[in-house]
């Protein structure tokens, strides 16, 4: 167990966490502003990945693929908001869960219908492939480093958007009192559509970026969706800061747990038992983390309301 391995795994965990943040930020924003649980957020992630793969295959350009993913997911998000989601704001959580579950079924099968059941592949672009040498002689894939940088840039951009712009003021006001800002002459329906499309675009971006290191396939969104839920519950629903902290915690726990729990247990148990117990514990680690956080702080780390 060397220091280099440790640093590599921390970077992997960070990269995973940052991608979860892109998903969780949209989810938590949508819940914070509109009070909506959106199970179909994972489908928007999948749509982003498929748009990127399709555009990149047609044009040969990864960057155009990314733009396609952002646009495709945002358009899909805005359409879904206009047709279905806006009828759900006044309904209870049970209806929201079911209606968005229904959307997952429609999106997943629809994508399977259009693209078939076989995974698509999205290649890492030439200029980002290959390893880069970090200080200390650690070789690390440049693409994964780029993902961390892009994610952090998005986090800063979101923070600026919410704390410094007019739209951000409206979003924050919408979280607190939607009737009041409607009375002040702000088109609340339009604001909701914009927030939903923004969340969808972030999910689509995450899907496209991750799609280049994993395969692009139907059903890729749901595991990430559930992890994003874990993230926002840990961070506190509605809090972007909570989403960032939660995402990094979950990313690190999942990655480091998978590597170090079996090693740690080998100190006490024979190797084969340690590996099997360690790997099952590691796969449950983030859920144990979430349960622990909720028991200590039922509203999450940065949550304002339960």
């Amino acid at each position, binding site marked *: 167990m060397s220091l280099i391995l440790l640093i590599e795994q921390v970077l992997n965990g960070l990269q995973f966490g940052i991608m979860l943040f892109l998903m969780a930020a949209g989810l938590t924003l949508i819940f914070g502003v509109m009070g909506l649980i959106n199970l179909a957020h994972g489908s928007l992630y999948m749509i982003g990945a498929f748009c990127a793969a399709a555009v990149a295959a047609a044009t040969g350009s990864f960057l155009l693929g990314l733009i396609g993913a952002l646009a495709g997911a945002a358009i899909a998000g805005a359409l879904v908001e206009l047709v279905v989601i806006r009828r759900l704001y006044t309904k209870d959580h049970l209806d929201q869960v079911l*209606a968005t579950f*229904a959307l997952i079924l*429609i999106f997943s099968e629809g994508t399977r219908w259009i693209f078939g059941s076989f995974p698509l592949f999205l290649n890492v672009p030439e200029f980002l492939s290959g390893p880069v040498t970090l200080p200390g002689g650690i070789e690390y894939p440049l693409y994964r480093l780029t993902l961390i940088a892009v994610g952090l840039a998005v986090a800063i951009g979101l923070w600026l958007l919410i704390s410094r712009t007019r739209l951000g003021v409206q979003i924050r006001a919408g979280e607190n009192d939607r009737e009041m800002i409607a009375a002040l002459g702000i088109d609340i329906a339009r604001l909701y559509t914009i927030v939903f499309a923004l969340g969808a675009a972030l999910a689509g971006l995450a899907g496209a970026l991750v799609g280049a290191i994993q395969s692009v396939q139907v059903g890729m969104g749901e595991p990430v969706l559930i992890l994003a839920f874990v993230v926002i*519950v840990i961070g506190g629903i509605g809090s972007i800061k909570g989403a960032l902290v939660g995402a990094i915690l979950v990313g690190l726990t999942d990655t480091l747990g998978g590597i170090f729990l079996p090693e740690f247990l080998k100190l006490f148990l024979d190797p084969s038992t340690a590996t099997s117990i360690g790997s099952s514990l590691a*796969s449950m680690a983030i*859920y144990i983390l979430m349960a622990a956080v*909720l028991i200590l702080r039922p509203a999450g780390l940065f949550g304002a309301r339960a």
Partner: protein
Amino acid sequence: MIRERYLNALTLALFVAIPFWAITADEPFTITLMTRAVVFAIAAVGLNIALGLGGLVSLGHAVFFGLGGYAMGILAYHAQNYTALTEWPFLIEGTKSMPVIWLAAIVVSSLAALVIGILSLRTAGVYFIMITLAFGQMFFFFAISWAEYGGEDGLSIYVRNGFPGLNTLDPIQFYGLCLGLLCLVLLFAWRLSGSPFGLALNAARQVPVRVETAGLDPVRLKLVAFVLSGAITGLAGALFADLNRFVSPTMFSWQTSGEIMIFIILGGVGRLFGPVVGALVFVALEHWLGGLSDFWHIYLGLLLLVIVLFGRGGLIGMLCGREAVHD
């Protein structure tokens, strides 16, 4: 508008009539489909106690369904291999007897529901939905990595377990057994909703503050409801495993939780026969739409959307009017 009790009677009559028709028409597969509907109905009647009566939106009931399934799988697996489950602190052997398996399924899933309930009921609303979902995932991943009992591939049981006096390998006899259990579970749910406990639980869902003022503990009421609900869904899991003679981590997946919830919404939340009607319609749709198109989930999704957006109260609500008759 049809009176709800007539609709309920009609539903039960269908559950008796269709298999009889299947025997005369020599369509054994229909009996298997109906058994599937009955088992799903039992699971959903269980969830309906937490969801309809207690207002607890649990997106993790697959935990209990799966635990029931694995209780059956593990006991039967050891029985078919003639190995002991454990020899310490005392000898536990596998079994192929359904009543024992059911008891084990109920005990294991109630215990799990107790622990999950105590932890989850510290939260409410959307946090409750998410924490139950997370517990579901926890069990799902545990089952996948539990190599001793098949891991990702699951466990196959070669011969269906036995019930004293019946030949469970005969589809119609196994169906009758499951239908009998469904009737028992329905009777229990009906008696429960009219009992002092059921009334208090109903009140705790609607106005917890008043219930507290009256000297009752709403959280405790909900916890009891959650445990009862988990136990019944666990029993359904054991039956489902016996129907397929196979258990796999899929039983723990969150899609399973979602499906059990869909049965209730299709039929009607909080209605006694809501889960039963929902499960029957779902299995029929699955079979019929699944035959028409490989992409039948699209149609299921559209139907579900229409029901959630326009048809409050599910199918029973559409047929019998909005007012739930608690008679």
